[in-house]
């Protein structure tokens, strides 16, 4: 205690009556000024806080006291434990990444010409509500490459290297044809020269059949050769499997391989418009006809970003996309405040750009970086809306975080207010140390 604070106190015990009345009035004025703030804090902060703590010891929405039962439940219920684990991942990854990316952007934008445009673009996501950003990412992350932008991009690259085959969904129409789309289909029965192979396929939509296709023809045997037909073994109602019937189309342009007894490829031809093919001048012996796997190669099916395994990483990417701009702007402001002379001095002393950045810029930026880091830490502890908006119902449980668990438990159908309150108290306890850190920093700066 220093002297100033002592003299500021009005003299207590021996105060004359006049001074006492004055003091009363002074306190009344103080109380009047304080009242609105106290009222609002009381109604909206203190009372809810106290009641939440009280409720966390009660059973559901009753007034039955169950002690620490809800807190025990908190650490044993699968979905809440998942939420706590996921929150740990968020805390470990997001504040550091956002700060790092913000720092990189801020330093880079200092050096490029169109820095204002760049900053605006990076900052733009901040202008959108988190929920709307979530909706955008939910569409971007769709598994179907025709819908999800991410998978469309990956699909374009994938299909350039391994193009999809002409009949990706085809299957064998009878068990005469063995194999799978991944290994290709082989006619099980071996053929001899003069023999005929029927390769019936189903599961082909009429839209997948090339437009040149015509009615499938029964192949005519060829002397010293092997003939056959590849056709869409289906007509409305199903038809008879394994028989070329009226109304069934040949499949043109399918590559058919002739394999010898050892399974070696001898020759390959493409089918005609009516589906027929023939290998002429074949030497005696046993042969098999086959359609290779390339014909059945599936197009890129998409990565399940929103599936149970990738949902948390997908959410984190979306979240960083939103917050990187905030970090960049704050850090850029800090960067602008660094005295140029210090940087110049570093360079004059022979420091490389990296050394100047590492030894001069970053230490000088430390207070700003810690503001960003702590802000993000608090944000991430309470992360909620992006999880709710991006994760589909089927993976919401795998994407669960503490704040979402609290909402789902209290209002999402379970309506267990007691347990929900316990989760809220737990979250509050987690935030307190970070808040304390922040308050201490404010004091130091003040």
């Amino acid at each position, binding site marked *: 205690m220093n002297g100033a604070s002592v003299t500021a106190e009005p003299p207590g015990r021996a105060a004359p009556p006049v001074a006492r009345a004055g003091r009363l009035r002074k306190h009344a004025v103080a109380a009047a000024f304080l009242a609105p703030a106290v009222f609002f804090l009381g109604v909206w902060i203190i009372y809810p806080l106290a009641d939440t703590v009280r409720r966390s010891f009660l059973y559901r929405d009753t007034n039955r006291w169950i002690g620490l039962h809800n807190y025990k439940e908190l650490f044993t219920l699968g979905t809440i434990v998942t939420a706590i684990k996921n929150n740990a991942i968020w805390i470990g990854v997001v504040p550091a990444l956002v700060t790092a990316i913000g720092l990189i952007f801020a330093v880079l934008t200092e050096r490029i010409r169109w820095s204002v445009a760049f900053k605006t673009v990076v900052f733009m996501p901040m202008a959108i509500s988190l929920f709307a950003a979530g909706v955008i990412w939910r569409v971007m992350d769709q598994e179907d490459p025709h819908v999800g932008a991410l998978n469309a991009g990956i699909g374009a690259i994938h299909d350039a290297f391994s193009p999809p085959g002409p009949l990706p969904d085809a299957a064998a*129409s009878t068990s005469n044809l063995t194999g799978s789309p991944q290994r290709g289909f082989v006619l099980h029965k071996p053929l001899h020269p003069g023999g005929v192979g029927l390769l019936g396929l189903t599961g082909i939509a009429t839209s*997948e059949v090339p437009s040149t296709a015509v009615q499938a023809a029964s192949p005519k045997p060829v002397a010293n050769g092997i003939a056959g037909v590849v056709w869409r073994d*289906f007509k*409305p109602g*199903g038809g008879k499997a394994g028989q070329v019937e009226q109304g069934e189309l040949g499949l043109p342009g399918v590559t058919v391989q002739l394999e010898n007894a050892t399974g070696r490829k001898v020759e390959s031809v493409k089918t005609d418009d009516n589906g027929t093919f023939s290998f002429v001048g074949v030497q005696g012996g046993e042969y098999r006809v086959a359609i290779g796997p390339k014909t059945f190669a599936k197009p890129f099916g998409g990565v399940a970003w929103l*599936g149970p395994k990738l949902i948390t990483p997908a959410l984190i990417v979306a979240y960083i996309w939103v917050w990187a701009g905030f970090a960049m702007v704050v850090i850029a402001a800090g960067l602008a405040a660094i005295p140029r002379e210090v940087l110049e001095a570093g360079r004059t002393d022979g420091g490389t750009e990296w050394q100047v950045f590492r030894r001069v810029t970053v230490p000088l930026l430390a207070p700003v970086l810690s503001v960003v880091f702590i802000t993000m830490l608090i944000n991430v502890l309470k992360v909620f809306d992006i999880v709710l908006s991006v994760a589909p*119902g089927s993976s919401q449980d795998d994407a669960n975080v503490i704040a979402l668990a609290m909402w789902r438990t209290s209002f999402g*159908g379970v309506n*267990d207010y007691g347990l929900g309150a316990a989760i809220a108290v737990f979250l509050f306890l987690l935030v307190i140390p970070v808040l304390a850190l922040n308050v201490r920093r404010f004091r130091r700066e003040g």
Partner: protein
Amino acid sequence: MKHFRWYPLALFALGLAALIATGTAGGARHARGVSGSISIIAKWTGDEQKSFLAVVAEFKKKNPNVDVKYTPGGDNTPQLVSTAVAGGNPPDIAVLPQPGLMRDLAKRGAAKPITFAKPTLLKNEASVWVNLGSVNGKLYGLFFKAANKSTVWYNVKLFKDAGAKPAATFSAFLKLAKTVKASGAKAYAIAGADGWTLTDLFENIYLKQAGPKKYDLLTTHKIKWTDPSVKAALRTMAKILGDTDNIPGGKSGALQTDFPTSVTQVLTDSPKAAMDIEGDFVPSDIKANVSAIKDYNVFPFPSIKPSTRLSIMGGGDTVIMLKDNPAARALISFLATPQAATVWAQRGGFSSPNKNVKPSAYKDPLNRKTALALAHAKIFRFDMSDLQPAAFGATTGQGEWKLFQDFLSNPKDVNGAAAKLEAAAKKAYGK
């Protein structure tokens, strides 16, 4: 210094008192005679709200002195109504999406019996609806708008391409799906991102396979989810869910398809799948320019056993009375008549459990088909998950919804799914 600390506290207390006072005062509304005013909180919004107001307008023709104040509650209706009741200022009439809250309110005495409407109702609706609306033998809820959930919607063009016809039995249904696959299309649009579509599928199968008696026992958890009948139904369900090549995007595609998307996969001009197994509300999610019968059609959920051939699983919105006054009584009595139901039926998007609504009242032919099947069903059972504790039957990401989604990703694990369902049910029913 210490003795002045009560100032802020006193002010705070005063403020609180003022708040409480404004909360409890006001509100009490009285109605005298058939003239008076009725406040209604209902789940119906948008077109449904307009249609219901048309019904109210018909009511006002006979009771011009009744003033009706309508509040659309949407999906939050249960919370709105519970809060209003807890706050001591309930609406005169509420329309709830699930019967669970009605029972709760009746037991607490907040809902008032509507026995005066029972004779009219018994004339017009099957006794199963009256029983559903009763608590301890007294009628509290009137089912005005219902849903037939035992329907399969299909794309006419894909059926034509495959030469497929609607199936009456489950074995014919599976064969139909196989034919559709052979034609190069996918048979099933499965909305696995929404767990409730999967519970609906299970409930249809269970009702038709295990029968209504077992259905009632399972609904009230008098038999366990590990019962052989449940496992048999899960195995039947796996015949559909396990046919992953027959679902657009396979398992993970299904798990990310929500209900509106599943409708756009089937009821469209560029279909991805041939059939959507969901209720009569499917057409309300059509986005493409397609027309009934020409582009899409509907058939009843196939029967599994002859004895349950005409059974239907469905849901309905319950009208309850929270304040007993003549005007509210008059409106509820009116809602029990075929005249009231006819007004909405003519506007479409409506299925009435009222048997005496004339078939011609339904303008849309498919609506007529599903609505009449519902009103005249030999066996009707209410959506099981709506009758169970919400934590088990109606919560995103947990209980039945989540476990059926897990079952969709692994349809072979019948025993595991049954055991997990039983564990979750036990927890939700227990204590």
